[in-house]
């Protein structure tokens, strides 16, 4: 965008110090035509499809070929695509590309602030165990909601008290079974989860192994988690 001044720049106009007359109506009122807008929309939809597709592809690869992609790949791809989409929205829909550069600078500062906030906070919270090992993890995983039990443990116990141990295990097994992608037609309704459409564990090794700093203060959940991971893999293989 060339900000052409109407007057010779070397001549200072007292009544128009900022050269407002030079870039008045024409400069600030930019028209972005419908073709550009539609093109951008198409690109954005394409990227949405791509990012969803790649995420599904990863799960499919893990299940079908038993190839575990590194965890960071998923994050980097998804966030890169999101960033590209965001830049497109800002540049064209929000017209930053045609706008006064101060607005872009402002957004730059803002993004920098966000990164600073997250990175510096991470620098503290994620390095607690660098010098003293005992500072790692949670004293009781999930917190001490009741005594030494986390909210999850309490919810589980309440449910078992309500329906009984056997029924609990039955439903749990069914949920696991369904969660590993055995279609929805033949599954028992207890296992179907409208809000759960893909495996909850067992997609990648990084997910199914217990993280190092998880101290497993709650025996029950811990054991189940391990068992679930194993089951997930066998289900994946058998498919």
């Amino acid at each position, binding site marked *: 965008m060339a900000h052409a001044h109407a007057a010779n720049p070397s001549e*200072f106009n*007292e*009544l*128009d*110090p*900022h050269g407002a007359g030079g870039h008045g109506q024409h400069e600030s009122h930019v028209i972005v035509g419908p073709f550009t807008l539609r093109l951008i929309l198409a690109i954005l939809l394409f990227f949405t499809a791509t990012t969803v597709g790649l995420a599904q592809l990863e799960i499919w690869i893990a299940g079908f070929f038993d190839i575990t992609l590194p965890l960071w790949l998923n994050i980097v791809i998804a966030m890169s695509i999101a960033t590209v989409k965001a830049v497109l929205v800002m540049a064209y829909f929000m017209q930053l590309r045609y706008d006064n550069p*101060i607005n872009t600078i402002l957004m730059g*500062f*803002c993004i920098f*602030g966000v990164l*600073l*906030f997250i990175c*510096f*906070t991470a*620098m*503290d*919270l994620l*390095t*607690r165990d*660098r*010098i*003293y090992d005992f*500072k790692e993890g*949670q004293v009781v*995983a*999930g*917190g*001490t*909601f009741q005594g030494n039990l*986390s*909210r999850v443990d309490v919810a589980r116990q309440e449910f078992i008290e309500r329906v009984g141990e056997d029924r609990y295990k039955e439903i749990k097994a069914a949920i696991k079974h369904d969660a590993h992608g055995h279609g929805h037609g033949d599954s028992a309704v207890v296992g179907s989860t409208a809000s759960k459409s893909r495996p909850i564990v067992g997609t990648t090794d990084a997910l199914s192994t217990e993280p190092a700093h998880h101290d497993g203060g709650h025996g029950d959940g811990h054991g189940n988690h391990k068992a679930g991971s194993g089951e997930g893999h066998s289900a994946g293989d058998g498919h």
Partner: protein
Amino acid sequence: MSAASHATGHAGGHAHHGNYLTPKGGFWTTVKDWATTVDHKKIGIMYLFAILFMFFLGGVMALAVRAELWEPVRQEGGQISGQMLYSMFNSEPATSIAEGNNNYNRVFTLHGAIMVFMVIVPSIPASLGNFLLPLMLGAKDVAFPRLNLLSWYIYLFGSFFAVISLVMGGVDTGWTFYTPYSTTTEGYWRVVLMVLGAFILGFSSILTGLNFIVTVHKLRAPGMGWFDMPLFVWAIYSSAIIQVLATPVIGITLLLLIMERVFRIGIFDPALGGDPVLYQHFFWFYSHPVVYVMILPGMGIISDVIAVQSHKRIFGYRAIAFASLGIAAVSFLVWGHHMFTSMSELAAMVFSALTFLVAIPTAVKVFNWIMTLYKGSIAFNTPMVYTLIFLVLFSIGGLTGLPLGTLATDVHLHDSYFVVAHFHYVMMGGTIMALMAGLHHWWPKFFGKMYNEPMAIVGALLVFVGFNITFFTQFFLGSQGMPRRYASYVDEFQFLHQVSTVGSFLLLVGFLVHLGVFIHSLVAGKTAPANPWGGLTLEWLADSPPDEHNFHHEPIVKHGPYDFDAVVPPHWDPADYPLPADVTKPHNVVKAH
């Protein structure tokens, strides 16, 4: 050259008809006019009185705290003694120490919350900034006048919630609302209301800052480049950037805190798997930069006052301007030093190192101010006295920050009275003293009345002495191990506590003297000339008090804000203002663009 600045102004003796203070009609018409005004000057004045009222309220809390500390709470032969606060609120004698301590906790919390959220943060930007920023820029108003009025009502609305909470019995969380205490302590709605009040006040702060940034960018008078702006404007601009970038984070923090308290969502509560240190990061990401929202405008006032009252070009204009921006930038990097003892060793080291960066731009400013004083023709009036007080107190406050920023010493000093003394020297010795300097400096401009100079100086000295007696003792208390936020203490500390309490009441006397001076000035003060101090910035071009539209004609800027060696100040007779003889070719008189 002087004609240039006179060209658009009116003579000093201009008849004051139709200034912004002139009532529009009867009482109710005037009330309605003020309640619905979009005039930045009226909004600034309303803010000023609201803030002074809140300052009074917070001050009462502070005196209550100091009175309580006259003697420690202790049990003597089955009797609980030393609970002044408790007996103020209750007719029955206390049966346990905890009962009295609860009152103490509430009072110091309210003192902190009121002083921070309702006084110091909005103090200078919202009152003096609102009034002066457009005047100094030669603009007719701020960029978004209606938004300005909205931010005033948001301020009232937020304060209203806080006051409701206070009336219901107050909160005992400390002004920082640290979790999980703040989400589990008694007084369910009181805490929610107080936090909601602070949350709403944040919006007011954001809107004010946003308004100022756009005003500075878009509404400078013809001929005013970035480096022709008064340093007060630079400071307000810098603090506005912080307000806009940092305040939203306290918004989400307090929102999550309310959710946490109402729904127990557990993000900050370890009982539900959350992380209380995360809250501290959230809180201080806002609350450290906001320390500079408090002090930067004060520094701006000092820069302006020191140049005008020593009638000398400010030393190192650009250095001070960039130091303002530098402080604003560094302010976002150092929040961790409020939580050295709760964070990881690695992060603490990084934050400690970064903390010392603050010293650089701050020292640049202080040295430049002192160099400005050097060989200036200094007028020893109240603004200048307060400026000198600021320099002394702020330097002490800044230097005592160093041991707190150093990890090894901070382990011993954290959460002690040393910290209390340190931030009072910076907050009160810095911001409030600068506010007092600015208030006296621009008082004639605000109200068109002069104040009683000798009495004001007496008040200033009382404040200075009282302040030091109150807070310098607390350095000793802190370094000897007196922890903050306790109603009880061991007997060895009683003498110093009593000295501090005496000082605090001396402070009260000082401020009462000022109150008297202000009331006297409004009722019976001499009519102020348009430019009583001989300032060169544009607000002195306007009448005192200014016309409703600020200037009679749009001013055209032809000289820098502090060119005292080259330009006769507006409304001054050149015969009374001999320029230095050795100035043969004054620079900046006519700006080359």
